[in-house]
């Protein structure tokens, strides 16, 4: 009797286990992919100023940052079924339902990260992850699944307020620091000043990289741990498996080493023109704020702190700040949470509607396809080590004004085929100009690497069509 029962149920049971395991593996792969995007998205926070001032060669800078991220990731110990704790209530669900929520949230985070990278905008990777999770939680569990405001936790206390405060505090501190540095060293020998500050910059940038690895890799470890708990591989009280830690550390380090050159260019060259003393002041301000805010229980986002610091270093020097670029960034920050949430919720609805493994596979294929599409789009106006320090002129942001960023982002995500067709037509016309501009830019970058010339604005005008090619 028992054998008959077993033989009757073993096959479907085994089949279900395999499908569940496959879903788990896809979720883990997606989490590592998010970690990877987190790496290249945030390289700029630590290294943009060092690359812009020439304190470090671009490859050396991202290599150093990658190594420090790798070490930093191994330093994080807080395990970690507590990811997004105080923001979403995932206790109500378990098993496959929980896996699906986490998966769709990750997809939302990745797509928003890649989209903002395509536009060269430094948005917060943590916000993208939380936004994705919040969106899928609302879709799956309703509004009550999200803790909107509850003392110092909740979306208001943990995300909204820090996001508003970080850039202001950072800009204030960095502007005072920059002002002091320039005042004190006004009479110093320029050669000694430049050399000294370049060395100092490397130290402060390294500290930011280390803190980044510790904080951000931990979030992905938490997500994978949550997935493992949902699948039943580990229990909540188990220790974090070493392979989870190692794979997350490697993923974020590889992402960092890839270098998000588009974002590095925006932060290093787009916002303000940075000199070594400003770079040191900005990085020190970032490091001090990231470390002290975590200590006082008001963790401020790395991205917004770094951006605010760089902005402040421009204000403190009395240099020109490109407020249009800052405006685009601010719009991206405002959109990060809702957009990642919207994409996450859509993916959840799609996967849930189809159901089971096929649903997850469809969304995963969609993710790979959209990321591939955005990567191909990025090849049209490449930004790499050769032209990372050349900002394509003040006129460029006019084509992608704050108002235009939102529809563009949506087009890229929601209706890729239509956007692709239009873009193809525009790009075909613009192509000769593109190659000319690219050649020009790389030549300028190489010839002037030592003297760091101002980007000749009138001459780089041919690169405009590529930046404006988007519908």
């Amino acid at each position, binding site marked *: 009797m028992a054998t008959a029962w077993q033989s009757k149920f073993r096959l479907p049971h085994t089949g279900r286990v395999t499908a569940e395991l496959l879903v788990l593996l896809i979720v883990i792969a997606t989490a590592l992919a998010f970690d990877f995007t987190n790496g290249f998205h945030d390289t700029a926070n630590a290294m943009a100023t060092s690359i812009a001032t020439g304190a470090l060669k671009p490859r050396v800078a991202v290599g150093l940052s990658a190594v420090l991220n790798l070490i*930093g990731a*191994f*330093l*994080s*110990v*807080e395990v970690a079924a507590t990811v997004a704790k105080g923001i979403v209530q995932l206790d109500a669900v378990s098993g496959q339902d929980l896996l699906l929520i986490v998966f769709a949230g990750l997809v939302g985070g990745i797509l928003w990260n890649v989209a903002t990278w395509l536009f060269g905008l430094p948005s917060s990777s943590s916000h993208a992850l939380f936004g994705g999770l919040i969106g899928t939680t609302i879709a799956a569990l309703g509004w009550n699944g999200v803790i909107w*405001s*509850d*003392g*110092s936790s*909740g979306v*208001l*206390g943990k995300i909204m*307020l*820090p996001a508003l*405060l970080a850039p202001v*505090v*950072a800009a*204030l*501190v*960095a502007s*005072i*620091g*920059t002002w*002091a*540095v320039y005042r*004190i*060293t006004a*009479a*110093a*020998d320029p050669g*000694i*000043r430049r050399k*000294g*500050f370049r060395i*100092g910059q490397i*130290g*402060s940038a390294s*500290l930011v990289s*280390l*803190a980044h690895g*510790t904080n951000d890799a931990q979030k992905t470890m938490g997500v994978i741990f949550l997935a493992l708990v949902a699948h039943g591989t580990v229990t909540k009280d188990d220790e974090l498996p070493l392979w989870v830690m190692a794979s997350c550390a490697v993923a974020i380090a590889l992402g960092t080493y890839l270098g998000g050159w588009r974002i590095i260019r925006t932060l290093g060259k787009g916002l303000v023109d940075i000199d070594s*003393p400003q770079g*040191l*002041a900005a990085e*020190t*301000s*970032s*490091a*001090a*704020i990231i*470390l*002290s*805010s975590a*200590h*006082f*229980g*008001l963790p*401020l986002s790395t991205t917004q702190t770094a951006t605010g*610091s760089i902005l402040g270093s421009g204000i403190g020097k009395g240099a020109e700040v490109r407020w249009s670029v800052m405006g685009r960034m601010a719009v991206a920050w405002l959109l990060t949470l809702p957009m990642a949430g919207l994409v996450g919720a859509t993916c959840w609805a799609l996967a849930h509607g189809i159901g089971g493994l096929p649903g997850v596979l469809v969304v995963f294929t969609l993710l790979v396809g959209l990321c591939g599409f955005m990567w191909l789009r990025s090849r049209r106006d490449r930004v790499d080590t050769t032209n990372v320090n050349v900002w394509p002129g003040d006129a460029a942001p006019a084509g992608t004004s704050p108002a235009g960023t939102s529809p563009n982002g949506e087009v890229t995500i929601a209706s890729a085929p239509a956007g692709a067709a239009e873009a193809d037509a525009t790009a075909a016309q613009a192509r000769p100009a593109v190659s000319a501009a690219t050649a020009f830019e790389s030549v300028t970058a190489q010839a002037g690497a030592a003297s760091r010339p101002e980007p000749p604005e009138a001459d780089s005008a041919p690169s405009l069509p590529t930046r404006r090619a988007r519908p």
Partner: protein
Amino acid sequence: MQTLIDALSSLWHVLVAALILGAGLPAVFALGVRLLSSADTVDDEGGVARRNHVVMAGAYACFGLIVAAVLTGILYTAKAFLAARLGIHLFGE
């Protein structure tokens, strides 16, 4: 409302600490650079004619302070790791 009050009281601490460390350390570093560049009196051939050792010592004291601050920052980042894996408890935890 409570959220706002909590955040603002934390913010006050963050702001003070960030101003001391984030703006103060660059100022100390700048002072070091300034002292370093005024320690040597350079003659016409570009060689060092006279070195003011007191000023030089001041410059190195500034840089020493910076190095100490960076090391503290690294230890602070690693404090949870040190406490959990090696049993070394820093920063009062």
